[in-house]
């Protein structure tokens, strides 16, 4: 029985699963723990999938996700709630209200940041601008240049969060819009090289910003066979990113995947499907860094429970 089946067939509900976290022996009680919760590609899925849906019937739903998050916040003082884009498009809620409700509910849940997915441009720059007042959270994007658009100066490339006594740097990367989004919908938005921008972000966050941890919110996509940039290629080319929270490819990952970066250290990639079917959770503790040389990982670790 693999893990997913085990979870599906288990008699205790998903709510009690989150309670398991506190009892784990791997987490030392004295250390401040950072709990990272994340979503990607929620695609306007306000209500759970209808029961008639063959694959996902009954799953998801923002009111349930909110309950889950509230429950975790009751147990964990240091929570970062992040999203990797494509908040919009997929149900009539978006067609009728233009994304207003999605932003309101995310604000209510206390999202700390998101980045842009291609579908977040589906109502054009004007449609995006119109809904920004409903978003009580920042859109972080390092590789889109909005300076020649009406949204110039509205977004930051990164934000530093003080959590669990540490500085956590979060930056965002978006996919190339041309060919994916109608030209008129992204207007004069310039797409910049994600690898170069990621390097710049790490230099800034690890340097002047003195961050202990760097997180990339990515809407590049998990993995392409072609040369197109994806999260795995990004991780393999850029040092200093602890975690890439991905999106776009709607990938259900059983566990985060470690990818060896050029300096031998691992960057973890995680993505939790789409439509709010899952809430991703990664817990981090912080250890004093050592000056000892890294034991280079010979290969990508098979981090699979099943």
């Amino acid at each position: 029985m693999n893990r997913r089946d085990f979870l599906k067939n288990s008699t205790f509900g998903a709510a009690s699963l989150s309670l398991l976290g506190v009892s784990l022996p791997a987490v030392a009680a004295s250390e401040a723990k950072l709990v990272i919760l994340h979503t990607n590609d929620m695609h306007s899925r306000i209500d759970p999938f209808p029961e008639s849906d063959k694959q996902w019937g009954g799953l998801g739903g923002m009111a349930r996700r909110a309950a889950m998050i509230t429950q975790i916040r009751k147990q964990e003082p240091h929570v970062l709630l992040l999203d990797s884009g494509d908040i919009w498009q997929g149900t009539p809620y978006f067609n009728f209200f233009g994304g207003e409700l999605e932003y309101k509910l995310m604000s209510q849940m206390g999202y700390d940041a998101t980045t842009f997915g291609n579908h977040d441009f589906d109502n054009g720059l004007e449609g995006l601008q119109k809904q920004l007042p409903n978003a009580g959270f920042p859109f972080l994007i390092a590789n889109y240049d909005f300076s020649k658009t009406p949204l110039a100066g509205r977004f930051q490339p990164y934000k530093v969060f003080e959590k669990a006594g540490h500085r956590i740097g979060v930056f965002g990367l978006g996919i190339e819009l041309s060919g994916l989004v109608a030209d008129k919908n992204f207007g004069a938005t310039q797409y910049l090289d994600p690898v170069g921008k990621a390097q710049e972000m790490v230099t800034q966050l690890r340097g002047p910003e003195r961050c202990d941890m760097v997180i990339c919110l990515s809407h590049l996509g998990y993995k392409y066979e072609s040369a197109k940039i994806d999260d795995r290629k990004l991780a393999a080319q850029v040092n200093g990113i602890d975690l890439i929270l991905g999106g776009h490819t709607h990938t259900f990952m059983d566990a985060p995947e470690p990818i060896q970066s050029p300096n031998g250290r691992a960057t973890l990639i995680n993505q939790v499907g789409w439509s709010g079917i899952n809430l991703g959770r990664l817990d981090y503790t912080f250890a004093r860094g050592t000056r000892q040389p890294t034991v280079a990982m010979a290969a990508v670790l098979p981090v699979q429970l099943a």
Partner: protein
Amino acid sequence: MSFLSSRVAAFSLLAAVALAPGCQRAVYQAKPQLAPVTAQPVGKALPEDAQVAAVITPYRQRVTQQMSEVLGSAPVPLTKNPGESPLGNFVADLQRQRAAAALREPIDVGVVTNGGLRTSLPAGAITLGSVFELMPFENELVVLDTPGPVMQQLFEYAARIKMALSNVTYTVDAAGKPANIRIGGQPFNPAKTYTVAISDYLAGGGDNMIFFKALKPRDTGVLLRTAIADKIRQLNKEGQSITAKVEGRVKVI
């Protein structure tokens, strides 16, 4: 329970050992504890957050209300099928009319594929919900200025699947090729450029219409779904029921 925790614990240990050491400029290093599971299903067993649910309720009511808006009524279903179909003719025609209105110029041809229409329209009341089911995609209506040789490729494509086009009649000959093509009653002129009302999806080469890819579409700013809903509303307003028929746009020898 012990099954899960012990495996997770062992896994966390493995992950911590493997990922922890290293030299870094920051004083602290982030160490992942991948527990208990990194993707927690948002399932039926979860209660709803009452405050969030309360915000959603009025929006849901408006969605439900708008989806049940009756746009018009049909005496018989407008069905879809490969080849010429009532629904295919209805949509291809309204695409041409709507594009003409949007761009304020006559449009020669309307194109929609059977696959692009997701379901038939029912007999009786047609609601906005019916139109969403028929056209769930955010496809936009565009116009392609199509040179004769590309039109020829379109007709060959159409003849292979006996697909009907708006404002066009043709015959599929014994070899499966299009013959006797007439556009607006006039014989097809390969030296002419024709205007084609089509979805941005097909204009971009969707459904293997790769011959369109090189053409630059002109936007109408109208979603295909909106065009369909508006047409039904308009007919209803004029006191007409929603009908369409197969009228021999494609003849097979």
